[in-house]
């Protein structure tokens, strides 16, 4: 398959469009053609299950915003003709995870209960992308209300397919984001990361996923899951694009009290400054999953996939060769508590955040002549929410109803302090380790087959163990591709850094990118593109 316009890096598209070399409409044409080639049938809530044949396509998009994209692309071209500044991301095709409200588009959160909701307003990060000249090509699929790590829990079936092998999951909950970018249907995707939901699908789909520091990007317009953990972020095909995108979406917002007022450091200038003198840590706690056996309660240890561990070490070697100091055996003793803490915090917050979906003001309302409002609530929510959502809500009720006696939520918030302290300790420049960042695997395994591991099982839960501590601590995390496994599926490695150190993380990530530019694995394309 030859490289098309839609496969160009975002920063290259922007450059060429701004200089007049390329037209935004040309780029859009290319994207729409690619969509026709790889998308397959439009996901819908009316499909009860999916067919085998569905496992050959990507189905990343819930809604393709054709008209919007055309008028935006034309406006960019018009601005260029008129000698006006079209914005730093002029003509760049972007996809938006359907967890974000975008005015005039169905904003579904992957749920039947919002299937008919046309948002009257647009989320701040999406506004900023559009104001920067980007072209919004559509809203991409996700696990319903972002509850899930495989994108299988959407109300809109068939589920998203991993472009590397569409019979495999793209990861979740930003599965549609990662898949659309990997398949060339967008150059940047706006996603969200609550427990790794940007980084894990990025790793599964061989693309770059950036979770900024909590509060770095406004959450206004992000349909809330776990308010103290949700982080809007980006998925791109390379590190440079992530840097440009961060510049555009980050920053204070009068509509979000938790968006910090620190000015955004432009990461672009020092992207290629290298890693000389940087101190990069490796922690044994990130090379295995520790969890209590469900039967005996004994602590079990399961090593992450060897192929993945090898890539982490290989990356460490690269960085060491480039002048960084690698510090091994960095202890992160509270890592394993990330999951139980996440469990409680996310479910309490999510159950509350989902109270508003009651069929009264917007979205789905159970049809018929119901006489009792309370009954209408029950029928609407029973019909409108999927199983995974109900599970989260009920657990949230259990954990917070017991609040008076057991204080689970408060306890979780205290253990969260311990997790945060693990990071403060290693990043403390007066402390023992003085790290600039921690290098870990993003996920314990590569992508798995659709249908193989489903539901809120223990395995599914603990898979977030490597990504969720970062959400608890609020710190930023970057996942970049680092190779392919024996099945030809992507492997991702992760960099975690102190608060607001996105520029440093991107710098390290870019270094790896440059050092592996000519690697064999970079020449291999996702399976779905090979067949074009």
């Amino acid at each position, binding site marked *: 398959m030859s490289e098309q316009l839609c496969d160009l890096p975002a920063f290259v598209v922007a450059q060429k469009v701004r200089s007049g070399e390329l037209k935004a409409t040309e780029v859009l044409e290319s994207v729409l053609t690619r969509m026709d080639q790889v998308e397959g049938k439009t996901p819908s809530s009316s499909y009860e299950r999916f067919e085998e044949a569905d496992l050959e396509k990507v189905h990343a998009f819930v809604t393709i915003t054709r008209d919007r994209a055309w008028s935006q692309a034309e406006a960019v071209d018009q601005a260029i003709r008129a000698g006006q500044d079209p914005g730093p991301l002029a003509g760049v095709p972007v996809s938006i995870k359907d967890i974000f409200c975008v005015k005039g588009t169905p904003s579904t959160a992957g749920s039947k209960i919002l299937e008919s*909701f*046309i948002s*009257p*307003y647009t989320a701040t990060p999406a506004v900023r992308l559009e104001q920067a000249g980007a072209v919004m090509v559509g809203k991409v699929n996700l696990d319903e209300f972002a509850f899930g790590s495989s994108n299988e829990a959407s109300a809109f079936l068939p589920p998203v397919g991993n472009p590397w092998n569409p019979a495999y999951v793209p990861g979740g909950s930003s599965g549609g984001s990662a898949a659309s970018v990997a398949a060339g249907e967008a150059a940047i995707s706006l996603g969200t990361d609550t427990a790794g939901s940007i980084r894990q699908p990025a790793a599964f789909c061989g693309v770059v996923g950036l979770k900024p*520091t*909590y*509060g770095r990007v406004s959450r206004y317009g992000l349909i809330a899951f776990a308010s*103290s953990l949700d982080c809007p972020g980006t998925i791109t095909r390379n590190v440079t694009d992530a840097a440009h995108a961060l510049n555009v979406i980050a920053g*204070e917002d*009068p509509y979000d009290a*938790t968006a*910090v*007022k620190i000015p955004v450091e432009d990461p672009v200038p020092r992207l290629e400054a290298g890693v000389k003198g940087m101190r990069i840590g490796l922690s044994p706690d990130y090379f295995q999953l520790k969890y209590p056996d*469900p039967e005996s*309660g004994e602590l079990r240890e399961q090593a992450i996939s060897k192929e993945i561990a090898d890539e982490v070490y290989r990356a460490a070697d690269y960085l060491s060769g480039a002048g960084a100091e690698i510090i091994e055996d960095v202890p992160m003793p509270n890592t394993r*508590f990330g*999951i*139980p*803490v996440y*469990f*409680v915090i996310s479910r309490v917050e999510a159950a509350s955040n989902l109270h508003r979906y009651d*069929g*009264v*003001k917007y*979205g*789905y*309302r159970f049809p018929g002549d119901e006489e*009792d*409002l*309370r009954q*209408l609530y*029950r029928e609407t*929510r*029973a019909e409108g*929410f999927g*199983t995974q959502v*109900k599970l989260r*809500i*009920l*657990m949230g*009720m*259990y954990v917070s*109803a017991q609040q008076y006696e*057991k204080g689970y939520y408060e*306890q979780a*918030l*205290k*253990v*969260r*302090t*311990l997790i*945060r302290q693990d990071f403060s300790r290693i990043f403390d420049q007066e402390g023992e380790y003085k790290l600039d960042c921690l290098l870990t695997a993003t996920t314990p395994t590569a992508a798995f087959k659709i249908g193989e591991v489903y*539901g*809120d099982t*223990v395995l599914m*839960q603990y898979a977030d163990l490597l990504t969720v501590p970062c959400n*608890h*601590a*609020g*710190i930023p995390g970057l996942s970049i591709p680092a190779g392919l496994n024996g099945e030809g599926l992507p492997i991702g490695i992760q960099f975690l850094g102190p608060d607001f150190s996105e520029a440093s993380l991107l710098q390290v990530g870019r270094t790896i990118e440059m050092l592996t530019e000519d690697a064999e694995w970079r020449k291999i394309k996702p399976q779905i593109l090979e067949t074009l």
Partner: protein
Amino acid sequence: MPEEITREIFDHLVDLAALEMDEEEADYLRKELNNQLDAIHELEAIEFDPSTPVTSHGVPYTEAISSALREDRIEPCKEADEIVGQAPEEQDRYIVVPDIPAEELQ
């Protein structure tokens, strides 16, 4: 091990959550919930200093990074019509729902 979430507790949770479900779904979900309690037990078993402060957000919101409070100024909203337009049932600009019989006075 005796079930922690009994049928009674489960029904109460369903009530709190304004949901309803048939036997099959109820059984499935209740089983799942009980399985997942392992995570809760794990949390309970963690030993730590009880005077540890809570962390509401990972990032500490010091005065330096916290945005200022909103100025008391009226910002008229232009989306009122669209918002009302999203209501499943509307009449003279009111949003219409069935009544709650239990609220009537004796």
